[in-house]
């Protein structure tokens, strides 16, 4: 699509556009680098020389991260978050994948109504259900428990997972199912033996999104979790922030933020392409 005259001197003509993109990207990278550097400074340095590199990164880094991990209990919260996120992602996929398969590949009465019903949750602000949810969870004795949080996280993430996976299953070729049917396979067998294996990329994408969503979730955890030892990472950072505002240990808070964002960042670095392609898929429907 490039014309001859432009390809000869492309860099100069496009220079302003490179400049814009580089400035925007540099801002994001700079912001994160600044937080990471802050986590390696002493409190005095954060106030006194916010722009310089950390003078003693190893000693201050160890101090800040061990304060955050041990004294502020982020280690425990990290573990809680791993449990909650792991269980939620598994549950979300376990219920959403079969549902999406049926909604995408089979005809039955009420199919579009059910699709709309399951996806409608995307439009509901979670603050709306504060009162009924706390009543329900209290009645079920699930308030202030990690299993309760897992169930709620799974339920509120069904809509996006169903949307994404329905789009994915719809994009798979019909021939495979037909071939399996001719071979005498039941639909159950077809789903587990034929469709699930080829749907692995789509399910992986849904898993990544569910992971990020659940790992980051703050509001419902704030609503449902009371005990300190049941806090998830976002709740832990919030309480750390509340405490650190008083103790003015900003360096420790910087370290906590870094710990909080590491898992999603690592996943992003490894799977950015898949996430971006997955979004494109859900938007195309």
């Amino acid at each position: 699509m490039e014309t001859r005259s432009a390809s000869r001197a492309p860099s100069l003509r496009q220079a302003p556009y490179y400049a814009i993109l580089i400035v925007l990207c540099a801002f994001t990278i700079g912001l994160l680098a600044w937080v990471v550097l802050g986590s390696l400074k002493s409190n005095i340095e954060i106030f006194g020389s916010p722009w310089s590199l950390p003078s003693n990164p190893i000693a201050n880094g160890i101090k800040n991260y061990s304060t955050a991990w041990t004294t502020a209990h982020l280690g425990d919260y990290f573990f809680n978050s791993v449990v909650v996120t792991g269980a939620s992602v598994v549950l979300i996929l376990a219920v959403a994948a079969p549902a999406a398969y049926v909604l995408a590949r089979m005809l039955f009465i009420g199919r579009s109504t059910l699709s709309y019903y399951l996806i409608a949750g995307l439009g509901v602000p979670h603050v709306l259900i504060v009162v009924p949810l706390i009543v329900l969870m209290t009645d079920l004795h699930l308030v202030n428990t990690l299993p309760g949080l897992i169930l709620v996280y799974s339920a509120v993430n069904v809509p996006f997972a169903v949307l994404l996976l329905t789009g994915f299953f719809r994009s798979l070729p019909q021939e495979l199912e037909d071939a399996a049917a001719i071979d005498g396979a039941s639909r159950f067998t077809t789903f587990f033996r034929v469709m699930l294996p080829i749907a692995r990329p789509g399910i992986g994408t849904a898993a990544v999104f569910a992971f990020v969503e659940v790992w980051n979730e703050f509001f419902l955890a704030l609503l449902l979790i009371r005990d300190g030892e049941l806090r998830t990472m976002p709740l832990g950072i919030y309480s750390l922030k509340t405490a650190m505002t008083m103790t003015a240990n900003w360096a420790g808070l910087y370290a906590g933020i870094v710990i909080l964002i590491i898992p999603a960042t690592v996943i992003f670095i490894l799977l950015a392409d898949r996430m971006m392609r997955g979004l494109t898929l859900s938007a195309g429907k």
Partner: protein
Amino acid sequence: MKRSRVRGNGLLVVSFLLPAIALYSLFFAFPVIRALVVSLFDWNGFSGDMKFVGLANFINITQDSLFWEAIGRTLIISVGGGVLLFGLVLFLGGVLLRPLRFKRVFRAILFFPVVLPGIAVGIIWAFVYNYDWGPVSGVAGALGLEDLQGPWLAPDRIIPALTVAVVWTYAGYYLLLVLAGIDRVPRDLLEAARLDGASEWTTYRRVVLPMVGDVMDIALILWIVGSLRIFDVIAAITLPMPSTSTYTLSIYVWSQTVGGDPPVFRLGYGTALGVILLALAILGAGLSRLRGSRQRIEF
């Protein structure tokens, strides 16, 4: 698909759908319906004291100055932030249509902030806006712009300040959606426009953008629904005791129901506020559909 095969698979349909429907209904859809009911009651949390008041909560809301102020702040984020965000996204969409190298890297870095937790975004931007050692104050101070030094997190400025943070977080996500639409525009159309002597920007405005209307609809709906409910980014800074002059609608719901310090437990009233938030989301989504159908008729 043959009908006979489908009829024989009723069991499959039911058993595959049931877990999702049960989980979603019990912990999400059912509470939504309960919320609609609760909004018609006056209730302080003790089961005996639940009193049906009809639409009284909604009538009182219309006379609640905190509510109107909260709506105003919510709209600063949704409308003001939306203009900023979509302006940026449409501009970057045109930039990324050009024959540039490293496009995938640029796109990925711009997309990255969306994986950050709202609570982290809020705290990071609290650092950014910090009067003593934040970069905004530093740069403004160096340029002698004392007015822009802050304090940006003072109650009267925090919502516009955080709107910038919200735009930073989500711009890459919406850029990606719009780029997905742009990718589907046939390349020969662009080539034809170029041969006719149209500049890159004219091609983008006149040829490409009109063809991504459907993706823009989805993006707009997602933004409206998503931006109205923003909570974490603001809560990260203002909770546990938000000043009433920083309330958005979602924070107001929280502080009227169970989130106050100490909680005020105006459960019916707070839930009615939540119903209005839902209504705004539905209204906003409906409006952007309207825009979409008009556009589709034009082309």
